[in-house]
């Protein structure tokens, strides 16, 4: 009996010892922070969509610019209208520089105080932000042009993530501004991103969608080439300081929603609370994609990653790959600069706020 106990103890001790000493204890110098380590990208949408495509594009190139070249892992946490990812980063992830949130739409989530959005972007350690327009399209068996929205071949199914998601708000605003009759479409939530929506578009379960340039290029363009969806019908555009919306220079031939409205109704441009809400929406696209560390992350990893992103932006190989997907070079805004414009981006006019509260069914 004593012999057995000793054997149990001995084998357990040996095994623990073997695991415990299987790696050399690193020296306490700041040789390279990420040497021999891995960095996890925490992504707030399902795999296969624009956020994932962007993260994978970054993964391919950024290793060259991070001293120590850490291995990069991916963790997907979709759901909750894309609030789960940033909520987990803010509340649960250790601020040790090894978990980087790569998110889409967080600025709008915070501004609308979306249910489930339990985080504060002002406390996060920002690394980089990217601005991108969205483009909108529809299944060709439902409509072939914007005019067909008013007499679609069959009911338009608008897939969404959740009522509080900024992408959903944008989708719904397009129909409100164009004054598409409510009986012509149905809004269905529960999808976890462009990946699942793409399958739904293919199968016919969904028919109308809007995607960022990255998402369209990476996932939906093939649907256009196969004739399943129309080419993009209009874009969000770019909000100017004077409040006007112009075409994004990356897609100069695609009209904006305002131009489509003018074409339909012959008026100068839309007005009213829905349009103010839309303008706010377009404004948030300046910070549509962000990468950030949790609050309390030390300066060293924040600095290392910030520098890496800025160096990667100048890499022609990265830009060549970005152009293959989006059709244009990618502009990476440094984290500090992006965070400084967050208050301005997040601010909305009272009539816009009221309209969005109505869409979301809550009060901010």
């Amino acid at each position, binding site marked *: 009996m004593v012999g*057995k106990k000793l*054997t*149990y103890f001995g*084998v*357990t001790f040996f*095994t*623990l010892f073997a*695991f415990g000493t299987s790696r050399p204890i690193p020296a306490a110098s700041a040789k390279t922070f990420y040497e021999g380590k891995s960095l996890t990208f925490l992504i707030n949408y399902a*795999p*296969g969509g624009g956020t994932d*495509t962007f993260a*994978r594009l970054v*993964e*391919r190139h950024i*290793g060259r610019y991070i001293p120590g070249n850490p*291995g*990069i*892992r*991916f963790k997907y*946490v*979709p*759901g*909750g*209208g894309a*609030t*789960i990812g940033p*909520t*987990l980063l803010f*509340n*649960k992830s250790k601020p040790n520089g090894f978990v980087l949130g790569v998110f889409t739409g967080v600025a709008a989530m915070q501004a609308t105080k*979306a*249910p*489930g*959005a339990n985080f504060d972007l002002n406390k996060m350690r920002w690394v980089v932000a990217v601005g991108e327009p969205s483009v909108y399209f529809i299944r060709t068996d439902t409509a072939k042009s914007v005019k067909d929205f008013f007499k679609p071949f069959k009911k338009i*199914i608008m897939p969404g993530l*959740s*009522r*509080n998601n900024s992408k959903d708000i944008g989708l719904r605003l397009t129909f409100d501004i164009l004054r598409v009759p409510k009986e012509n479409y*149905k809004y*269905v*939530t*529960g*999808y*976890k991103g462009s*990946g699942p929506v*793409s*399958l*739904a578009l*293919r*199968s*016919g*379960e969904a028919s109308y969608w809007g995607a960022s340039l990255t998402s369209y290029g*990476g*996932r939906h363009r*093939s649907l256009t*080439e*196969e004739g399943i969806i129309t080419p993009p019908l209009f874009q969000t555009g770019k909000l100017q300081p004077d409040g006007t919306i112009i075409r994004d220079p990356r897609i100069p031939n695609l009209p904006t929603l305002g131009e489509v409205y003018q074409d339909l109704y012959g008026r100068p441009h839309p007005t009213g609370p829905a349009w103010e809400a839309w303008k706010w929406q377009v404004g948030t696209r300046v910070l549509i994609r962000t990468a950030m560390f949790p609050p309390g992350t030390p300066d060293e990893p924040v600095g290392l990653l910030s520098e890496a992103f800025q160096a990667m932006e100048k890499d022609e190989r990265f830009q060549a790959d970005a152009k293959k997907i989006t059709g244009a070079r990618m502009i990476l805004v440094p984290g500090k600069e992006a965070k400084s414009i967050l208050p301005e981006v997040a601010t909305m006019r009272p009539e816009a706020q009221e309209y969005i509260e109505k869409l979301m069914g809550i009060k901010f």
Partner: protein
Amino acid sequence: MIEAATQAAAALVSPERIAFLFIGVVMGLILGAIPGLGGLIGLTILIPFTFDFDPTVALPMLIGLLAVNTTSDTIPGVLFGVPGTAASQATILDGYPMAQRGEAGRAFGAAYMASMLGGIFGAVVLAVSIFVLGPLVLAFESPEFFMLGIFGITMVGTLSGKFPLRGISIGFFGLLLAMIGLDPQIGLPRWTFNSIYLLDGLPLITVALGIFAIPEIADMVIKGTQIADVPKEALGGRAEGIRDAFRNWALVLRGSAMGVWIGAIPGLGGSVVDWFAYGQARQTCKGASETFGKGDVRGVIAPECANNAKDGGALIPTILFGIPGSGSMAVLLVAFMIMGLKPGPAMITTQLDKTYLMIWSLAVANVFGTGICLFFTPQLAKVASIRIHLLAPVVVVVVFLAAFQATRSLGDLVALIVFSLLGWSMKRAGWSRPPLILGLVLGSIIETRLYISLQLHGAGFLLRPVVLVILLLIIATVGYGAFQERRSKQQWVKVPVRDED
């Protein structure tokens, strides 16, 4: 088509490509054998190395890794009753009793050969049917996904124990556990009890290790013996197992076909394919209702051929639509992007040679993987005769380390202990454990798909033709389960409670 297939075969047989395929296979075997790891981790590690590789070198390596995960995952399942991956749970029902009877070698031989045959079958089906299966994959929408998920739960509940209705209720308990965390529709916390650890839900691997691994090891330690309750001399051989696989060729064909079809359904296949195959075997094999669950080699063959064939199926939506058929396929899509391969019609036209390279790699990897595993079978079988006081400490430490990989926080260890106690209690009380894991796996899919289905169709989604067929299957399964349970209770008279899974 033939020209592209020939070209791809010729490309694969170069020493460089075969070498990289072999590297992928070895890595995949190691990852599959260790609970908590699996192909997803391996792919994530390998992909960055392939950035500068020629696609004709990178693809064989990545496919090689994926293809054999479900070959080696049999090892912990047969020896310890612990699934190496989510796709090998059904194998345990008969594989583990075989090991206890001293037939671990036979179980391994049958499993590996079935895996190889299933994997090759999957590759062949992929080669032939990729041109026509697209519309079938797209026929499944949210209502069908929801109903398939429910069918999976009821089938596992019915098959995995002596008391099917109890098993089904355990499955639904697993669905409840899947709801812990942030609500997928709005993002509000559910049942987290203000715990930050639970915001992310329960980690699957930690729960699975607690439910399966610790209770089995604890039982063996208490008995103070070894895995095999027979003398070392009586340990059964792999040759017999290999012969079993060929003798049951019709079962292999059926299981493999099922594996491919179910594997092609995006998001669902991997976690249920082995159960569906096990279920059909139990219903169609002679005498199965009496012998399955007690060490019937056919109960090992059916799930093993299916879970290797599913990779061929999972590649169909991945290649044709860029819709990943499984989590590993989602990562593989990344590799496609890096290599400049665009899922879609081009993969069966201008890039057909790359598609066939993947198909050939799938087939060859299964042969390599089986060969390696069979080579080591005698040594693996001997593990069953090692005294438990030598084996248990090592296994327990590995289990704790594997569980800690989930989120690398103290909560993982606490969760492991809590679910170990639950698993132990369930084992002692004769409650089936696999349905709980499947409920946890499928919970998110089922909830989301139900939510979408109700919005799109209201309750009328139940009247869709495919949904109706699956609903009838569910009713038949539950009815069969109730009948079996009643029969079991009548035969049970005055027998002490036994641990059954």
